[in-house]
């Protein structure tokens, strides 16, 4: 079972078009709610007049911040974001009020009758201005967070280096671009509790936020995950849930919300734009002696996952290499740009672009092969990371390089403008330096079956199938005896969110632990010697022993406040991608032709699902490297935000490395984000190999690449 390409447990329904996504739901007397959002980036709200909207036909209720019965602010890390703005707005798209109508049309029409008087405040449009400006977005100033990673003595490291390479890199906003936009339905159940069914990555967090904002106890709230059409981090923050809860609270009727693509673009959190100054020192033999990285990020006006990204990028700033002297300095500033949050990789894909460009730059100066310099410096068993964590187990990085090696050594340019690039990464599975446990339980049922109660949010990546396989393997039982009860705060315990590539590793381990207990029980009761499960279930009922729970919290340590020394993650995933590109040096078009991708996943519970993650990650990496750029105020729809299509896809060969993680279920760790992280870096390095220019800004889209090539040509012409 574990290690097999078992078909997804949800797939038959999906090929038949049967799954009910939130926007497909139906209910009697269903209302529709829409959000009125700020058109201004930064302004005082002087007055709100909703009388015109209320007078429109079919309008049932208009809700403003004043109407919120409980706490008015929410947030994953800190509760800083107004549910509905009062007095002041801090970004274009900030929710101000909620209009609930009999139909979607009625609600949307009434929007134009809302009258709000704003008085503009200077808008802070970049983190550098934020640092200096006297205009404060929040009372405490414009700095959200500042984290450092310090190891050894970086100045001494540079002094002892033979070569020093210094460059700056920058990246921009990206949208998650999940195909299903944010949606949900809320209603009151027979007991008068608030129920919200939504497209989400974390039901328990949202249940808690609803209870806070409505000021009611948690057991009066139930959150259920509907089939979810992709997440990628964008459905971790509250999207529709609090609005639905408020609308139900006031109207006592079922309410639906479904964002248009335009609303999704303007409201959803974005990938953090980062400015990265990177200095690397190395000896003649290629050994990296020192790395100094200064990172400045634009987090938008509210925290969301900004603090997490601030720390994670610092911790991952050296890439998967052993560097004796490190100084990473990471700061996040508030601006009046879109709120930035979690997006596949929490900032690490941006950093990979920088550290991998640096590795190639050092290799070039030393006349070393890019693969050799990585083999020389790569993390291996016994290595110490930038946070001085010694890696003992499951360090398959060198093996990922070795998988790629034969293709790299035999690479041949097919034309004078084709090229090859390598990108590498390591990525800590789970949340950074905090407890992030998962709980689940198995129950022996009245009808003689085993029910797995799981709070894990399946968002398309396949976690339900993975848990299923882990369960069946551990129990050694036929799947007709097992049922999955999932995605509902009423029937499951908190597993934490579907993020940080943590569900296979952490929730998978919790399932394993529960299954081990049940396995022992079944063994005692004679199941494996032929006694029927129905019999055992009956006996278990009489013994009142039907629940078997599982728990896992990966062992991490807190980090030193000043140096970040410590073990922020219990395990890391590793990967190497090699990419062949073909650049048209007249037009700036870059074609990605072929990718070889090697991933150390500990153990592939389902190799086909692992490959699916890698293929999807490569696609997103192509977007990050070459085409995706969210421009506030300009990127409004899929008409002016470009994501990869089938025509942009290369041939991809995936190699799975299995250096088992002892704390993981059957040795498994995560792959969701690692799949994406090294891809853009390998494309950018390929571009340099192809046409000799060094992109320092993502995306390196057609115009940017064309300009780089032209600049280089004119430089050459100027040389005597």
């Amino acid at each position, binding site marked *: 079972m574990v290690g097999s*390409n078992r*078909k*997804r447990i*949800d*797939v*038959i*329904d*999906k*090929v*038949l*078009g*049967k*799954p*009910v*996504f939130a*926007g*497909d739901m139906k209910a009697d007397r269903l209302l529709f709610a829409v959000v009125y959002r700020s058109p201004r980036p930064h302004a005082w709200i002087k007055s709100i007049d909703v009388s015109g909207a209320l007078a429109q036909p079919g309008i049932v209720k208009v809700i403003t911040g004043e109407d919120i019965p409980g706490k008015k602010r929410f947030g994953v890390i800190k509760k800083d974001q107004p549910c509905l703005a009062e007095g002041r707005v801090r970004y274009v798209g900030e929710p101000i009020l909620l209009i609930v109508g009999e139909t979607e049309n009625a609600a949307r029409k009434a929007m134009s009758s809302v009258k709000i008087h704003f008085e503009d405040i200077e808008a802070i449009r970049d983190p550098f201005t934020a640092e200096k400006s006297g205009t404060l977005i929040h009372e405490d100033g414009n700095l959200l967070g500042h984290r450092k990673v310090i190891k050894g003595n970086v100045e001494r490291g540079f002094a002892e280096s033979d070569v020093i390479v210094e460059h700056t890199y920058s990246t921009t906003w990206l949208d*998650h*671009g*999940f*195909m*299903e*936009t944010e949606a949900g339905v809320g209603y009151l159940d027979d007991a008068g509790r608030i129920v919200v069914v939504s497209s989400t990555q974390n039901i328990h967090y949202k249940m808690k936020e609803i209870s806070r904002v409505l000021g009611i106890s948690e057991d009066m709230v139930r959150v259920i995950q509907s*089939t*979810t*059409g*992709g997440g*990628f981090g964008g459905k971790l923050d509250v999207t529709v849930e609090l609005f639905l809860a408020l609308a139900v609270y006031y109207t006592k009727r079922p309410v639906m919300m479904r964002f*248009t*693509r335009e609303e999704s673009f303007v409201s959803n959190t974005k990938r953090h734009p980062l400015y990265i100054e990177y200095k690397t020192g190395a000896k003649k033999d290629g050994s990296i002696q020192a790395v100094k990285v200064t990172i400045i990020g634009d987090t938008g006006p509210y925290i969301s996952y900004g603090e997490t990204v601030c720390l994670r990028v610092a911790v991952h700033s050296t890439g998967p290499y052993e560097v004796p002297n490190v100084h990473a300095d990471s700061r996040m500033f508030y601006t009046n740009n879109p709120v930035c949050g979690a997006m596949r990789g929490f900032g690490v894909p941006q950093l990979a672009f920088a550290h991998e460009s640096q590795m190639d730059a050092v290799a070039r100066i030393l006349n070393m092969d890019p693969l050799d310099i990585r083999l020389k410096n790569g993390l291996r068993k016994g290595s110490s990371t930038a946070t001085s964590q010694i890696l003992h187990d499951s360090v398959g990085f060198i093996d990922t390089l070795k998988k790629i090696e034969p293709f790299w050594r035999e690479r041949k340019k097919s034309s004078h403008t084709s090229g090859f690039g390598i990108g590498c990464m390591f990525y800590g599975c789970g949340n950074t330096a905090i407890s992030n446990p998962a709980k689940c339980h198995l129950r022996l049922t009245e009808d003689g079956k085993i029910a797995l109660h799981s709070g894990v949010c399946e*968002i*398309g*990546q*396949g976690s339900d199938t993975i848990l299923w396989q882990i369960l069946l393997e551990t129990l050694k039982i036929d799947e007709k005896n097992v049922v999955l009860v999932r995605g509902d705060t009423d029937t499951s315990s908190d597993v934490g969110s579907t993020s940080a590539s943590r569900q296979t590793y952490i929730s998978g381990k919790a399932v394993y632990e529960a299954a081990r207990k049940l396995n022992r029980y079944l063994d005692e009761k004679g199941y494996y010697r032929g006694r029927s499960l129905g019999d055992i279930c009956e006996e278990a009922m009489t013994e009142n022993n039907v629940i078997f729970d599982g728990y896992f919290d990966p062992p991490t340590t807190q980090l030193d406040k000043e140096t970040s020394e410590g073990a922020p993650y219990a395990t890391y995933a590793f990967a190497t991608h090699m990419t062949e590109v073909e650049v048209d040096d007249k037009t700036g078009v870059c074609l990605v032709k072929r990718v070889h991708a090697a991933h150390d996943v500990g153990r592939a519970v389902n190799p*086909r*699902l692992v*490959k*699916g993650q*890698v*293929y*999807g*990650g*490569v*696609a*997103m990496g192509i977007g990050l490297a070459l085409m995706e750029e969210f421009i506030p105020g300009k990127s409004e*729809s*899929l*008409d002016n935000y470009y*994501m*990869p*299509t*089938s*025509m942009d*896809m290369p041939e*991809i060969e995936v190699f799975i490395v299995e250096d088992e993680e002892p704390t993981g279920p059957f040795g498994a760790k995560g792959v969701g984000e690692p799949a994406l992280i090294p891809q853009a870096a390998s494309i950018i390095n390929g571009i340099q190999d192809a046409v000799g220019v060094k992109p320092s800004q993502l995306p390196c889209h057609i115009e940017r690449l064309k300009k780089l090539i032209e600049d280089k040509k004119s430089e050459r012409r100027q040389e005597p």
Partner: protein
Amino acid sequence: MKKIDFTLNGKQTILDVEDNETLLHALREKLDIKSVKEGCSIGECGACTVLIDNEPHYSCLTLASKVSGHDVKTVEFLGDENLLHPLQEAFITYGAVQCGYCTPGMLLAAYSLLLKNEHPTDTDIKEAISGNLCRCTGYIQIVEAIRNAAGLCKCNS
């Protein structure tokens, strides 16, 4: 308001539609066919793909009144639990489905291709689904599935 008369998944269907009503709206809200998805409403994502006379169309850009007298197919036409279409089988076998939001549209675009071309090259396949965005799969396993289904199904029989 206008009365239209068309074939939907092989059945004659008569429906009242507004002059400016999209086929997407009519199918989802009036005929309860929720497998037809909305991803953008401006003809950029392909989630709303249906076949009209076996050619893929964005139902978000098609006026419902225009399909009178035509043949419309949605994914329900392809198969059911008891008898999956070879394309559906292949989507399962080759891992072409993740979140499933793009899947109905992808299957229809693929079906239309195989009607016209029993042995498509990978380029043919990629072109045929180039109007259908998928954010999850990177398209690789979708192409693989369609390529493998091509040998197995006589879509026009």
